[in-house]
């Protein structure tokens, strides 16, 4: 079989159009920036019907031209996707094949966007996101990877080759190379080429997203639990407690992250059981958080409280114990819990990665929560709660925390991105996850040695990681802008 070209037959039509629209977009953007430098602030003119007129003159023209070339560019991109979905690799080359592979993702994205757009006025902050172009682009990128991870991880869709199988003759082959034994292969090509161990780069990238999506959001969530549970009392009570906690947070923050990783994420450390001990401490915070949350809310109605608290503690406790107890752990204390009730085990290497990431992130969350608490606790509604004799934890969790949610949600998005970068860093240094793991950091590390000769095995996961983190950052930016409005 012939090797695939990048865009196949559909490229004959679309490639020139893409080139033109891209150049037009670039030119108009530059022009618009230059114009905004050149002219001073002009007055707004008003039409008789009460609407503001579009900016007049050359400047208004460039603005318009920029918008139209953006639309044209986006339309071309959509054309690639749609055509690719229909014709596949046969007519669309590598791009066509990839677009077809992502078909379930495209469908899900369209459904999600149409539904959200339709109901956007009823959906609060999430709905407002659809008023901001930046926010929508970010959300689209993030959801692209979420769906990819979901379909690939759960239904084994999208990717076509096993990420670990090495096919002889495919080592370091360029994108679009046909398989040596086409009939036996699940898919006739390595769409994005083979890596230095002759594995499919495309499939590894797709499955890499599953690993990131499993660890990054969850680790960030745990970091938030720890940060919130410690940051609220530090800010609310102040005094000695604040001094001690802040000192500890600063201690961790002063620690160069990379050094910490090199010290923590090593096989020797796993042998000492330290990650299990840290998990023991860090994972208890969500449990405490939920417990205190329920208790403070229903403290005046003991019956309701006991019921809710009992259910929450039983479920949470089981999950907690399953999480920290490990029948294969090096220290006997972690084998105390009977194996039958130990629902799942996390491999030591993954656990240590998870714990380290939570550990590195939580001091920053702590500082943010502490700052917000210091600000909100001076409000009158907090004083009102105090004067009716509410417990401090009720005030912290029900009066202060809900009103700090805006900045926390924004930071949560940013922090998932940061955690993704950290995971990549770990992979890049070959720490933690097993060396054959398809996660993006490890794959970049594999590919970088032959970078100047065979760039594709490293570039593909690098771009994937970049797009996800960029999406998260844009999403956070959109959320911040929209929550600051009105």
């Amino acid at each position: 079989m012939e090797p695939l070209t990048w865009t196949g037959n559909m490229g004959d039509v679309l490639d020139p159009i893409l080139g033109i629209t891209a150049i037009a977009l670039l030119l108009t953007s530059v022009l618009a920036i230059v114009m905004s430098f050149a002219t001073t602030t002009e007055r707004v003119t008003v039409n008789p019907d009460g609407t503001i007129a579009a900016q007049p003159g050359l400047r208004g023209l460039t603005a318009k031209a920029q918008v139209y070339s953006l639309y044209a560019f986006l339309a071309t991109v959509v054309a690639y996707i749609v055509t690719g979905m229909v014709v596949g690799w046969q007519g669309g080359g590598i791009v066509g094949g990839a677009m077809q592979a992502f078909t379930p993702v495209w469908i899900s994205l369209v459904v999600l966007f149409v539904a959200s757009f339709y109901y956007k006025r009823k959906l609060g902050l999430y709905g407002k996101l659809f008023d901001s172009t930046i926010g929508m682009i970010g959300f689209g990128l993030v959801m692209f990877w979420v769906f990819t991870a979901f379909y690939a991880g759960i239904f084994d869709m999208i990717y076509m080759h096993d990420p670990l199988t090495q096919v002889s003759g495919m080592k370091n082959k360029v994108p679009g190379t046909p398989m040596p034994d086409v009939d036996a292969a699940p898919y006739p090509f390595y769409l994005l080429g083979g890596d230095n161990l002759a594995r499919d780069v495309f499939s590894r990238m797709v499955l890499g997203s599953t690993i990131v999506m499993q660890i990054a959001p969850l680790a960030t969530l745990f970091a938030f639990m720890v940060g919130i549970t410690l940051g609220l009392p530090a800010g609310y009570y102040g005094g000695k407690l604040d001094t001690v906690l802040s000192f500890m947070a600063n201690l961790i923050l002063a620690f160069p992250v990379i050094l910490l990783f090199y010290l923590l994420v090593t096989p020797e450390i796993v042998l000492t059981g330290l990650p299990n001990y840290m998990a023991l401490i860090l994972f208890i915070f969500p449990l405490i958080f939920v417990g205190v949350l329920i208790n403070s809310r229903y403290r005046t109605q003991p019956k309701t409280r006991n019921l809710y608290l009992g259910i929450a503690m039983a479920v949470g406790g089981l999950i907690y114990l399953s999480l920290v107890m490990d029948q294969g752990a090096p220290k006997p204390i972690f084998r105390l819990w009977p194996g039958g009730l130990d629902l799942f085990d996390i491999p030591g290497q993954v656990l240590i990665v998870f714990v380290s990431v939570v550990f590195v992130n939580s001091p920053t969350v702590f500082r943010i929560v502490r700052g917000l608490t210091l600000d909100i606790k001076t409000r009158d509604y907090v004083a009102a709660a105090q004067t009716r004799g509410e417990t401090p934890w009720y005030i912290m969790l029900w009066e202060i925390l809900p009103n700090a949610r805006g900045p926390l949600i924004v930071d949560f998005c940013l922090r998932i991105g940061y955690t993704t970068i950290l995971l990549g860093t770990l992979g890049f240094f070959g720490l933690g996850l097993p060396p054959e793991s398809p996660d993006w950091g490890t794959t970049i590390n594999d590919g970088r040695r032959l970078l100047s000769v065979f760039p594709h095995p490293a570039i593909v996961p690098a771009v994937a990681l970049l797009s996800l983190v960029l999406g998260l950052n844009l999403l956070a930016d959109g959320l911040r802008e929209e929550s600051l409005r009105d």
Partner: protein
Amino acid sequence: MKQNPDYQGPILEIDKLSISFFTRLREIPAVMDFSVSVEPGEAVGLVGESGCGKSTVALGVMQDLGKNGAIVGGSIKFKGRDLGEMSQEELRDIRGNEIAMIYQEPMASLNPAMRIGKQLMEVPLLHDNATEQEAYDLALQVVTDVKLPDPKRMLDSYPHQLSGGQQQRIVIAMALMSKPALLILDEPTTALDVTVEAGIVDLVKDLGKKYGTSMLFISHNLGLVLETCDRVCVMYSGEAVEDGKIEEVFDRMRHPYTQALFRSIPLPGADKNARPLVAIPGNFPLPHERPPGCNFGPRCDYFEAGRCDQGVIPMRDAGPGHHSRCVKFEEIDWDAPIAAATETKSREIGDPVLKVGNLKKYYEVAANALFGGGEEKVVKANETLDFEARESETLAIVGESGCGKSTLAKVLMGLETATDGTITMGNKEIQSTPIEKRGTKQVAEIQMVFQNPFDTLNPSMTVGRQIIRALEVFDYGANDAERRERMLQLLDLVKLPREFADRMPRQLSGGQKQRVGIARAFAGDAKIVVADEPVSALDVSVQAAVTDLLMEIQREQKTTLLFISHDLSIVRYLSDRVMVMYLGHVVELGTTDQVFSPPYHPYTEALLSAVPIADTSVQKKHIVLEGDIPSAMNPPPGCPFQTRCRWKEKVPGGLCEKEVPPVRRLEGGHQIKCHLSDAELAAMEPVIVVHAAE
């Protein structure tokens, strides 16, 4: 360089001005069909409640409406030239040079990282091509003119090193640097204490005369406008509703809104039982929900369907130089007595429920908060307070910032514990029982209403939920249904519709939020309610309604109300007894009549003189206090008030600087903390004299 130095006509002519703001969803008209002119040397007042568009007019004059605002009709002429047609360069030339502006927040309007001298000198350097030395000399002279001590040092300091009053004087100095033809003052004293405000108002009046400047004075305070302006323009919901000479508008008003406004503010003649305030019904319309026809129509007593809700209502002549935007002003009997007011009986005052004896609250603070260490300083927030409050009584606690009234509230509520002395509530001493150690009933009995309506409710919880939570905490009811029923009753009590239970606080207006705050305070059948400036952040017309509500609930529930305020007018209107505080000391305590008539404590005297009163028949003695309120961190020795007291010379032997005066008990339980001799006190003259109606 000044333009048209020989120009003779009006300084500012605003003709049929309309200003709109544009949002993503709609155009929001902020000012509509607004006309006013300012003659040379004249001071014109612009009054109205918040959101009526008065500040937008000022920004329109400055041509600084931001990105979303635009003038959509009419013209603004300055010295005969249309400001809307000027280029940016021409505008820059006029701004700060011929038109200067003074803002509400002095601290925020000065650059924190620039020395004051430099900020002042910038004006002549920009507009008059002055040399560095000339600019400095001018700055020095103007700073002396605004009566700041030690001008050289002032020029060399940063804004944060000055007190609020001093900062506002600097802002005024900056505005006067170029001897502008027009000065726009946007609520220049709202952020300041009353006695400081009096000084600033005095200064502005003097300097206006001295420099021959015309003024556009924007304020929500009718009394202040009366004191400063020659003419006044009343605005309502984006429109001017009435304008004219100040005496005309104040004494012969020809618009129902102006009338309603005057009836809702506590003037010296008002009395909560005999002549209660009349609140304006309804709410201020949102800009995009204005009614057709007259904007005030839905809230107006004289509303007539078919006439008031049709078409555009123009401004019409109502006398020489007097205009009104009312179609019916000729038909209304403007001298008719207030009809709606129902007289109520004064309630019996019962036994004491709260006794405070010799209460002291000291704080220890590090002298240097940021860097810690250093010697600890003791702030004496409350010094030997001694008073009692009875059932069904309203005890007003009056004082300016730093007088210790908020600390007193905290100690009463149990958020702080007393350093010394006793607080007896019921039969129990609670001065050293913090709130967590108080029983549910004890907590429920003493509750608080807060100052800032935008801060008093948790923004992320429904109104009903917040009241129910209070009921839960106070152990009311056996189940959720009972509590919900009680919550709805509480909403009835504060005259809010029951649908409000499921609304979020952001959907409520300021006055409605304050009502919810009151409902929450009464959830546990409070015996004592501490109201910390409950109406000072509300608009005048809403103030009356909330005040009346508090009075009504008090009458029904026999509550003891501790009413903390700095506003003597409202205190005079609603309180039975008054306690005046200054720097942690109670300087005067007595019944309302005793406090408001001589003999006064010198501070009370100055306070009474400082409060602007919107009544042309009132004559006040003019007393302006020198300087600012001393810091509670660093109080003066002897009498706390001695640094600003005008009676100090009358006390022999410099006693005021050496000893804290003893509490003097005069007849009828009237207490004054002063060294003045009985003869001196007896010789004091009343500050406020109400002339008989002419």
